[in-house]
């Protein structure tokens, strides 16, 4: 599919037309945004087949709930990214629960967080300004924020996963958010 523009005004128009159940608008919205949303879903789920299922659900939610989109509150991509992230994190929680109910093997399936961070750092090379702001963060701060954002971990889960005291993890996240905000505010 040929991609379309991500320009907010254009996306807003498409969402308005989706509200009126115009299938052409959803197709245009899909062309414009699906590759970005699919990247988010793949990052969270790390499984192509699951990401495809989730992407399908995301666009059905957009189709059925376009009337609830409020341009005064969020930009179109923020709204759609939030739907995608919530959909994937919900899926992940359900999957984790199923795995825990079925077997303790889930503990062995967790990937090495250091390797994940390296891989993500490579993907972030695509955006200079983001890369700049992320360089402002300490490695531990960045790793905690990524794992929380993309994998939905709580403080306690991060503490266990990174084998660090709870207070240390909380500190890394707070300091990381402070730094990220002060860096991003002038450019957003």
């Amino acid at each position: 599919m040929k991609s379309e523009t991500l320009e907010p005004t254009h996306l807003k128009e498409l969402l308005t037309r989706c509200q009126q159940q115009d299938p052409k608008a959803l197709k245009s919205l899909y062309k414009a945004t699906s590759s970005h949303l699919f990247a988010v879903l793949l990052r969270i789920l790390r499984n192509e087949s699951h990401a495809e299922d989730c992407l399908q659900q995301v666009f059905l939610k957009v189709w059925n709930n376009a009337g609830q989109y409020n341009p005064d509150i969020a930009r179109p991509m923020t709204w759609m990214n939030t739907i995608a992230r919530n959909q994937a994190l919900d899926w992940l929680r359900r999957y984790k629960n199923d795995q825990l109910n079925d077997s303790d093997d889930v503990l062995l399936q967790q990937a090495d967080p250091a390797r994940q961070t390296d891989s993500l750092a490579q993907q972030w090379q695509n955006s200079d300004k983001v890369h700049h702001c992320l360089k402002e963060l300490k490695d531990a701060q960045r790793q905690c924020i990524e794992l929380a954002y993309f994998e939905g971990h709580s403080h306690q889960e991060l503490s266990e996963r990174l084998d660090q005291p709870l207070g240390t993890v909380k500190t890394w996240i707070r300091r990381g958010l402070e730094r990220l905000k002060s860096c991003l505010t002038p450019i957003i």
Partner: protein
Amino acid sequence: MSDPHHITEPYDLTLPEQRHLAAGEYVLNTLSPKEKASFEALMAFSPDLQADVQQWREQLQVLDTSLKPVQPPAHLWKKIEQQIKPSKAGFSLKFWQLSAMVSFSFSLALATVLLIKPPMMNADTADHLYVVNSPEQKPAWLVNTSMDRSHLMVQTVKPASLPDGKVCKLWLKVGDQYAMVGVLPHSGLSKLSVPQWMQNQLVNAQIIVSVDPMDSDNNPDEMGPVVNKGGFTPLEGSLRRF
């Protein structure tokens, strides 16, 4: 990587700076269930905190937008398209049109009764409702006017089955003028905008439901077969507001 000043206390939500950081962690979803409950209780009454959360959503979205786009497989769109298309099982346009005529006759009889005994209510401020019936004469959609008459809310009850590629369009007619306000949804609630020029006359507008191709123009001269037609009925005693 160690930090000498480890945080062990939860956020103090009475302090603006801590509230702001808590909003960031709310978006990250790292707050404990107790912290999250306190935060949400406060957020429910604080537009500033709601704005903080939205600001963090925008800012943390850089994590999403900085990922390299990945094209999903081509077959995925076909699956989505299939799901948003209405099914064609059990559809009979002629039967629907015929039953709409019967329904219209019943509405006339009802209107006559209502005229003999007018309802004790102010029609300018009351909710108004129109029920779009299915070919089986069961409620398929409920169409409500908003209090300020700027919108219609359409609640799906049991949508009628339609042939592939067809949709039900909702038109409003005031005098000789038509407006296509939207397509009746397959599920859930849909909010349709009423054109400004029609809002004062909305409760007196004629409602028309036609069956048209999905991608047809919204030209009243090319309107497809009409399957439902009628007017809004004022609802007495409704407390709903939107």
